[in-house]
């Protein structure tokens, strides 16, 4: 896809997303809201997996930590202040990512995959086993945060439509922010690390610091998603940090095609959509899901966003004959 066509595609997609609340169906508005949240989550992981070459299998930890922070920092029966809660929750998940990053970035390859997994498990047990967050049953976020600044309230998260546009706006912001970061010198170093870390080191870059920066940033953005999840559903459980969730978000990234922010968004939508369709077909939907995953890896390693190029190639091949 050339740059022009790509921009048109994005704008059309954005316009379509902006029209969703017009349907008036609160279930679908909420469903798409969740997909948008997962899209943010997938983009944050893509920064690590797709651009820096760090396959984290414990990304759900940062999502979950921010979600818990949203619930725990809110007053029990009153609305918290959105403008304090959001930075607070995101700050906590960034801090967790920074500390865990100090450890896990000492490892590489397979070790990195497993060590990120193990740290996420540790975080899981903190919420599951200790009284910190209400234990295994999870906790409620009873009242959604208020967006009031002084006496002025620009929007109300209790209103499904307002909430939808707030999440959509954050997704677009995260997208633009990440796109900008990737254009910056910092982002170029990350991409350089992915293709050849040794070369970057011999060029004098302290790659460990760059990776730690990327890991922390990804944790923070994953935290944005986790915070929004808690606000959207008002219920937080330790399972948000489980390795299945880490696996699912990896799947979204791969499904869309890694190293491609739009791909991550497409992947998140495709994953959630596919699950919904399969579930409506059969109670053995996990068999279908597993089968699709296996087939995807074997036959479409570039993910969905590589499809247009593949099809074009196939068509051109056909014409040449």
């Amino acid at each position, binding site marked *: 896809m050339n740059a022009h066509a790509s921009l048109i595609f994005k704008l059309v997609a954005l316009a379509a997303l902006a029209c969703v609340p017009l349907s008036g169906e609160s279930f679908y508005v909420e469903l798409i809201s969740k997909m948008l949240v997962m899209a943010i989550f997938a983009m944050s992981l893509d920064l690590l997996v797709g651009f820096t070459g760090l396959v984290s299998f414990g990304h759900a930890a940062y999502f979950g930590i921010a979600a818990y922070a949203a619930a725990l920092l809110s007053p029990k029966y009153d609305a918290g202040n959105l403008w304090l809660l959001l930075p607070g929750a995101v700050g906590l998940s960034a801090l967790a990512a920074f500390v865990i990053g100090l450890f896990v970035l*000492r490892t590489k390859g*397979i*070790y990195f995959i*497993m060590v990120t997994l193990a740290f996420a498990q*540790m975080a899981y047990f903190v919420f599951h086993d200790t009284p910190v967050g209400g234990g295994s049953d999870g906790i409620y976020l009873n009242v959604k945060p208020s967006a009031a600044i002084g006496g002025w309230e620009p929007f109300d998260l209790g209103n499904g439509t307002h909430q939808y546009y707030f999440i959509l706006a954050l997704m677009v912001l995260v997208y633009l922010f990440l796109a900008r970061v990737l254009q910056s010198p910092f982002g170029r170093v990350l991409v350089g690390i992915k293709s050849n870390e040794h070369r970057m080191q011999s060029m004098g870059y302290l790659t460990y610091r760059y990776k730690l920066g990327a890991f922390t940033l990804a944790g923070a953005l994953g935290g944005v998603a986790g915070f929004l999840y808690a606000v959207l559903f008002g219920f937080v459980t330790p399972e948000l940090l489980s390795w299945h969730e880490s*696996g699912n978000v990896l799947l979204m990234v791969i499904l869309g095609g890694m190293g491609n922010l739009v791909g991550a968004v497409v992947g998140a939508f495709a994953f959630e959509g596919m699950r919904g369709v399969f579930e409506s077909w059969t109670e*053995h939907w996990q068999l279908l899901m*597993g089968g699709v995953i296996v087939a995807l890896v074997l036959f479409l390693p570039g993910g969905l966003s590589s499809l247009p190029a593949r099809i074009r190639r196939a068509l051109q091949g056909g014409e040449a004959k």
Partner: protein
Amino acid sequence: MDFATFLIQTLNALQYGLLLFLVASGLTLVFGIMGIINLAHGSFYMIGAYLAFVLTSATGSLVLAIVLGIPLALLFGAFLEWLLFSHLYKRDHLEQVLLTYGLILVFEELRSLLVDNDVHGVSIPAFLDASIRLTEVMTYPVYRVVVSVVCIVLAVALYFVIQRTRLGMMIRAGNDDRTMVEALGININMIYRVVFALGVALAALAGMLAAPMSSVFPNMGSQVLIISFVIVVIGGIGSVWGALVAALIVGFADTFGKVLLPEISGMIVYLVMAVVLLWRPEGILKKG
């Protein structure tokens, strides 16, 4: 804790560690030699346990079930390697993670379709169904001792195969340099198939041996999967001895952690792992 209790807890730790070793050994072999990260390893453990259940029900004997089950597991492993895993060697770890994640879902659903979702028990063979008296109230089942002995024998046998046989030599060579081995005219694909089948069989055997102790139940594989990962990381990827040492460390940490530090017992093995990684980022024993 008095001395007798301490000794019994040590026995518990050893026994638990040895069983964990059996699961983790297959994982570390496949990891180390083939470079494949296999999340479905826990599923092979589950499949082994269900094989034990189904075959014991059919034949009336766990021993017979194991004798039949091992070749089945080997065949199954070789088949899977041919069908799926042989396409993964040149792919990156991420794709391996995903494919094997998909396999977990497939295997669990097949289990649900072919057997059911209930909990089932497998009985201990009559000649092993006895106990040894330890204290005035406590006894120790002979079956657990036998399982531990089997684990030790297998550890030694694995070591022997890898260090002293022609197959082991080829495996070690393939581990170090794939192209070199191919240049020498050794069929590396065949070696990989053997190693993978062996890995599957080890996990399945662990499941079969554990079935009478743990019962068989849905999702039993995912419980051992994560802990096996921790063991492989602590021990050093590809090292059978490392896995043994790590499994014993985890066995001790878990057993004594539960009794002495109950507040953090869920986290303790992961803490151990973090400490080991700080000390040695590549595990206690890297390849061996």
